């Protein structure tokens, strides 16, 4: 049995490893590049150097773009979580045909190509006077992040027995008290996931930012993009490396917490 399948095994194992390498190498290649001792993007020549990390921390434009991305992301996470949760809870209570249609409409931002959507933002933001403002970016990113929040809250609420809010009502709780006491606790895991998603959507978003900002607003992805356009500055690689490290740390923490959660 093993003998017969071993040919297949080798074929598929090789394929799997190649796909993994293909996925990971472009990400990992930024690490040596970030440590280069040259002043252009390339592998280290004579020795490893941290000069491009130093450059990042000494450059106000990089730091301010990073800070902008972080606080815009946080504001977006809060706004999208509040709106998306409200929407999901409302639909859950109605649970009729109109609410099903509303759910479909809300997830269209995921289906529409980003360029088309950004064009739409651009047209509207011109009319509303939101071009090149932080408010405009926050609003656009909130709209983009909403579906992720509401989808994850919907998923969390799918586990909520409709008789539980009914029980709360029959025990004397108003609709509002019921939402606070039993619906929000059930939605909480979804809100947390959704909020993290919303932050990442905003932190990572570039197409919309390129369309609706000019000079006034600079986010980290936009700065990286401009860095590549203007000069081939290895600082980009050091920024990218730090982001990769951050992602790995966050992922490990998440997995670790989930394992802990399962134990209780």
């Amino acid at each position: 049995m093993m003998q017969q399948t071993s040919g297949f095994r080798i074929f598929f194992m090789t394929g799997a490893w190649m796909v993994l390498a293909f996925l990971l190498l472009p990400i990992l290649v930024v690490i040596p590049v970030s440590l280069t001792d040259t002043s252009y993007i390339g592998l280290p020549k004579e020795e490893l150097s941290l000069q491009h990390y130093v450059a990042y921390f000494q450059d106000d434009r990089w730091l301010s773009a990073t800070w902008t991305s972080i606080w815009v992301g946080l504001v977006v996470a809060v706004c999208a979580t509040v709106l998306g949760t409200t929407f999901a809870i409302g639909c859950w209570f109605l649970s009729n045909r109109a609410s099903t249609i509303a759910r479909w409409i809300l997830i269209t931002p995921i289906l529409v190509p980003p360029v088309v959507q950004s064009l739409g933002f651009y047209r509207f933001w011109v009319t509303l006077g939101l071009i090149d403002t932080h408010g405009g970016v926050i609003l656009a990113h909130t709209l983009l992040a909403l579906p992720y929040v509401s989808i994850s809250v919907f998923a969390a609420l799918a586990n909520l027995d409709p008789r539980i809010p009914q029980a709360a009502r029959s025990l004397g709780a108003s609709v509002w008290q019921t939402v606070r006491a039993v619906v929000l606790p059930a939605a909480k895991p979804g809100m947390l996931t959704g909020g993290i998603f919303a932050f990442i959507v905003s932190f990572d978003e570039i197409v919309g930012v390129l369309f609706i900002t000019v000079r006034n607003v600079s986010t980290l992805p936009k700065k990286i993009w401009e860095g590549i356009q203007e000069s081939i500055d290895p600082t980009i690689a050091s920024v990218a490396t730090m982001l990769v490290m951050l992602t790995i740390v966050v992922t490990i923490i998440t997995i670790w917490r989930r394992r802990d959660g399962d134990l209780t």
Partner: protein
Amino acid sequence: MPDKILTIANATKRYGPVHALDRVSLDVEEGEFLTLLGPSGSGKTTLLSAIAGFAPLTEGRIDLRGRNISNEPPEHRDFGMVFQGYALFPTMTVRDNIAFPLKVRKRPASEVRKRVDECLGLVQMEDFAERMPAQLSGGQQQRIALARALSFEPQVLLLDEPLSALDKKLRADLQWELKSLHDRLGVTFIYVTHDQDEALSMSDRVVILKDGRIQQQGVPDELYKFPRTRFVADFLGKSNFLDLPVTAREGDEMTCRIGGTNFPVTAPGATASGDVLNVALRPERIRLGAPGQELLDGIVRQVSYLGERCLVLVDHAEVGPLMISQPTWKAEVTPKAGLPVSFGWDVDAPVILEDGAA
């Protein structure tokens, strides 16, 4: 005559083309144990939800002590409800679950504590106050759900198949407990079940539902002895159904014929007008005897021994197979398959059913 606490008039609930409730009218008396009994899909949960305020009626009204509450939200009705599947709040401890109705009513903390302890005592769960619902067995969750629904001293307690998920032994124990709780507290219970034994053993009054309509209501004994329709006779216990041709009639006294044998039937207030009586005959009302001892002759087809009783299926040329239930401790004959026997019944044993009742 006790006061009415709830009056349900012409309650109708439609879901699209489905009549979940169809012109249901019902009075509930203060302090009684009323059971809604019916097969699955007969509208029991819908009726209970309408009373609780979750399912607004399409037509009709519900009055609480003469006040129309049809449009009041559930939280203003002050009815405790125990749900099918318990519906405990999973993120709260047992204590917080029971305290919930008191907290939303803004009772002082010391009173809440005292009352929760009282309620835990009521259902004998004092040791479980700090547990989470997921750490309790089904029967324990059921008790907590009951304590929670009673903690705010509701006017009416609504129970939707509270015991259906439990095993047989535990169910029997909890039936006794529920009944004694009702007797002690004097709260009006409206109890939903599809289990006829549960309904007969616990209730002051039983309402039988089918397809969203009330089929018959009454005290358990009366319902069992005098079912009006074939459905009720069949649903509450076992019955034999016979079509008896009437040969003579004199007031309530009739003479019917099976094969070549004439025998009298008493039918007080019988509505049957035709030449054929549809009757239900309880298996335990039929006597079994040695050949010639009783009016009709038959042959035993099958015997099933149940301990205190034994069920005998007897073939008769005219009426087909009849189910007879015979106490094992005073058997006239020891039935065996193939044994020729005779059987008969008292004049008041057959219950006349309404015409056309399916």
